[in-house]
């Protein structure tokens, strides 16, 4: 039975919620789907996945997979796809999937489509819609061949319900000793934050170049985010200037967000940035320049000096 195989991402403690959105696309495809989990010490995470209507949670658990090294992960994913006869192998658009799935595609001799936002049945086969040119255009892509790999934009698909009868958890056995050994994990920057994850937050407050420096950025962007219980984002310019870390970057080459409320502080609205925010429900833009391009797409526009406006805003919200 042809099935889809969905790569689920986690941080060793819990599933990363955006990676569950790929399940919604798999449901649209029809047919069975299995969830694939790679790592080490996965019992708890696997157990949290049994109610998503999958045929199985397939678990590749081994010390050799403790870190997400592309050469090893791609090898195991390709092997699992072959053994299970999976036709569509998909993951959520993230640096994790984008690092690993194209490599798995090469191992499977199959094409791949990045950042799928919709599927459509055309001429008896499934075609995929995806943004190109920093989201300024949408392409419809047809794929030949039996097997294909996809990354899925989480913001374009709902979080699936977890209300199905529990499915089995199946151990995927593979020869860990024969895995590639060419990439060594050295370290990862650990930064604890009490703020919600940028791609999952209901409110995102973002800052651009006018925030000047790290302290000002934290005081104004961070202060407003905290008042609203939101996450922090940044433009490329703000990250390049060292005001915010790289993983705060939103846009064509950074993260794509679609919160209920997006507040842009001192962001003029380069197309590369707008590509990452345009599906937000409400966009508030605060900018000194009345001609800033972001005002053309903002739900609410406030022209003025953010050094005066943002502290007032924080105070009004805190008072309320």
């Amino acid at each position, binding site marked *: 039975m042809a099935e889809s195989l969905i790569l689920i991402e986690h941080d060793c403690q819990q599933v990363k919620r955006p990676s569950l959105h790929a399940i919604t696309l798999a449901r649209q495809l029809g047919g069975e789907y299995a969830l694939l989990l790679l790592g080490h010490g996965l019992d708890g995470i696997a157990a949290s996945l049994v109610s998503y209507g999958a045929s199985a949670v397939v678990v590749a658990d081994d010390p050799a997979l403790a870190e997400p090294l592309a050469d090893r992960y791609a090898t195991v994913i390709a092997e699992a796809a072959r053994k299970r006869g999976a036709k569509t192998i998909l993951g959520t658009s993230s640096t994790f999937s984008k690092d690993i799935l194209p490599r798995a595609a090469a191992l499977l001799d199959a094409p791949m489509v990045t950042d799928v936002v919709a599927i459509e049945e055309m001429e008896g086969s499934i075609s995929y819609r995806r943004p190109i040119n*920093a989201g300024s255009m949408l392409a419809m892509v047809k794929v*030949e061949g039996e097997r294909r790999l996809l990354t899925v934009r989480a913001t374009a698909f709902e979080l699936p319900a977890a209300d199905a009868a529990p499915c089995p958890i199946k151990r995927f056995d593979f020869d860990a000793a024969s895995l590639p050994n060419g990439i060594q994990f050295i370290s990862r920057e650990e930064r604890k934050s009490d703020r919600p994850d940028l791609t999952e937050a209901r409110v995102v407050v973002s800052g651009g170049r006018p925030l000047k420096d790290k302290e000002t950025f934290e005081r104004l962007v961070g202060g407003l985010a905290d008042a609203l219980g939101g996450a922090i984002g940044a433009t490329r310019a703000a990250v390049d200037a060292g005001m915010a870390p790289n993983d705060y970057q939103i846009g064509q080459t950074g993260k794509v967000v679609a919160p209920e*409320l997006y507040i842009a502080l001192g962001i003029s609205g380069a197309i590369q940035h707008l590509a990452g925010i345009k599906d937000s429900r409400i966009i508030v833009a605060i900018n000194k320049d009345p001609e800033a391009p972001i005002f053309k797409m903002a739900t609410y526009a406030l022209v003025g000096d953010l050094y005066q406006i943002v502290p007032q805003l924080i105070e009004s919200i805190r008072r309320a």
Partner: protein
Amino acid sequence: MKILVPFKSVLDPNEATAAGAAVSTPKSVINPFDEIAIEEALRVRERGEATEIVGVTIGPPAVDEQIRVALAMGVDRAIRIDEFRALDPYAVARILRAVVEKEAPHVVIMGKQAVDDDSNQVGQMLAGLLGWPQATFVSKIEFLGNKTRARCTRETDAGLEIVEVDLPAILTTDLRLNEPRYVSLPGLMRARRKPIEVLTCDQLGTSVRPLTTVLSVARPPRRSAGTRVESVEELITKLKQEAKVI
């Protein structure tokens, strides 16, 4: 050490998206991420760690213009794979595999994605086809162990990560790796004398057929401009009563 830098010609992303783009003929440039890869290769050579930088691109004779720019930046010689068809990332990766097998570089440095197609696949696919290690989205590269390994800082969704890869390897560049240099006039003069080798897929002994086809391209629905508010109080009122979001 020999470095291979694959690069792609794309329509100038700044010009193509500018308001008046419709009336001017858009000009092509080296994909910005690939330009960063070229710059990095040049810096590695300037540190005395590389002896030769070979550039490779795929396209019709028109892309020679971008090849000249790469040569003017300092690439030693270039290969153009003569190809008129629209290719997909997997086809590009398979052609590049043949080039890598011919050139036998110690490292391949290339952009993480092309800013027109935004696929972010070719480097990883090439690494998979060759069975080479990969480090994607890198913002720092150091060669270690008498150039047997590369230590790379990667920009991931969770923050910075450091990995070491055995060479030969594929490294794909992120934005903050470096700031590419401008092409100088003497550079452009020197570039005229540098060789461009033109090869067909047949000559490379590879035949590829793209497996994905773009059926249509359309503009996404536009968000329209909303309401101008005059004060913080008005904004808060709108967010509460109209948008019901706070």
